[in-house]
């Protein structure tokens, strides 16, 4: 049985089912409130959710039992008395070390928990980056949306921030450096300065079996890094568009990646009214459309950056994605065929499978 945590504009929906048929909604939490992201920590079973109440501000909540009470995590705030308030938590990711959980938010803030998500602390190294005054928000804000641990090496981490590029640490977040070489932004003048940070990364995913390899969906570009995010190569050739948000990988295959192209930044819908997931199995040298079971026409969907996830690996890799239309789709055979998971949920912000 697969569980999907579907974070929507009107609450968190828990869906359960098996690939091939619609899932059932088995629980709903935070009814009516925008839930940005929710994930189950596979180490503990704890579910963590970020909720941005329009009235009471952004919070992280956690529950060890979805039928029980949710508790508010402590410390999810910027320093008191400053000029900036936390706008939103975009992503929550279990770390490699015991009890470590990361959360990323707007404005470009990283929080770290060492007690499984019960309390968090702001990462000062990133918060006090000298270049921070030059960081620019994208359309969704200055969002830290991708947190990519390195399997087995808790001190190594890559971050993606829109629009402040890629940030890398090898010392557990004490110091950070940029990892932007090779990225070309069409919305900047030619020959930007070498330390340009206004780079609108949309999503990062690391290959589990070759962790120095990271795939990136950019704001106009799909990239691959083979040196842990230091430099990037464009691999978008063969896609109908190089604009999009989500990205998934098959953990068993370091040459694999899945993207969902949208027309362009000025028209953020599936091209030609056809919903297609594009798969590469040769590290981006070629792309194959996967759409058997997905809407072939008259479907103009928007899929946000957190709204795609994978579960398992190899031929039985499960893939799930949700759209702002409220539709959720799934595949139980690595994208070869697709089925409707749910049709009429509220606008989907994020999907997490376990």
């Amino acid at each position, binding site marked *: 049985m697969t569980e999907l945590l579907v974070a929507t504009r009107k609450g968190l929906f828990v869906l359960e089912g098996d690939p091939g048929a619609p899932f059932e909604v088995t629980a709903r939490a935070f009814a009516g409130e925008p839930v940005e992201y929710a994930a189950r920590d596979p180490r503990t079973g704890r579910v963590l959710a970020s909720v941005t109440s*329009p009235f*009471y*501000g952004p919070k992280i909540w956690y529950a060890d039992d979805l039928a029980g009470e949710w508790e508010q995590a402590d410390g999810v705030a*910027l320093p*008191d008395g*400053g000029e*900036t308030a*936390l706008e939103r938590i975009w992503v929550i990711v279990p770390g490699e070390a015991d009890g470590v959980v990361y959360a990323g938010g707007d404005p470009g803030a990283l929080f770290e928990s060492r007690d499984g998500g019960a309390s968090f602390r702001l990462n000062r190294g990133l918060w006090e980056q000298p270049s921070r005054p030059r960081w620019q928000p994208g359309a969704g804000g200055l969002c830290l949306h991708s947190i990519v641990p390195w399997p087995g090496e808790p001190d190594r981490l890559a971050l993606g921030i829109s629009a402040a590029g890629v940030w890398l640490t090898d010392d557990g977040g004490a110091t950070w450096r940029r990892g932007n070489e090779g990225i070309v932004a069409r919305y900047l003048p030619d020959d930007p300065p070498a330390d340009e940070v206004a780079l609108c990364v949309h999503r990062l995913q690391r290959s589990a079996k070759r962790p120095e390899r990271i795939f990136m969906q950019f704001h106009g570009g799909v990239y691959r890094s083979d040196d842990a995010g230091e430099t990037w190569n464009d691999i978008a050739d063969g896609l109908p568009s190089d604009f999009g948000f989500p990205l998934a990988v098959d953990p068993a295959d370091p040459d694999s990646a899945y993207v969902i192209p949208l027309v362009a930044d000025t028209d953020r819908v599936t091209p030609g009214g056809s919903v297609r997931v594009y798969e590469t199995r040769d590290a981006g040298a070629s792309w194959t459309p996967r759409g058997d079971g997905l809407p072939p026409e008259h479907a103009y969907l928007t899929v946000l950056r957190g709204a795609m996830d994978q579960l398992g690996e190899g031929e039985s890799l499960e893939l799930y994605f949700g759209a702002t239309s409220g539709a959720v789709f799934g595949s139980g055979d690595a994208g070869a065929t697709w089925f409707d998971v749910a049709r009429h949920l509220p606008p989907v912000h994020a999907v997490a499978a376990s």
Partner: protein
Amino acid sequence: MPFVRLRGPLKQLAGDRAELAIDGGSVGELLLALEREHPATSGWILDERGALRRHINVFVNGEMCAQETPVAPDDRIDVLPALSGGR
């Protein structure tokens, strides 16, 4: 001493009390005192800057007011989610 009236989650965070006597010379001082006396309310009404959240309205004796508004000992202060926050 002025008294503050809370509803919904704010009431729950303040020990499930709908009315609390809180001391303060202004709305802002009073809200900070509420946070000190009931730490669970921290971050729910005021943000990290100390600013009233955009979609929270505060009324003194029925009149919408600002953080700087003075508060007298017999005043009634209502802290309410604003109509503008609904989506």
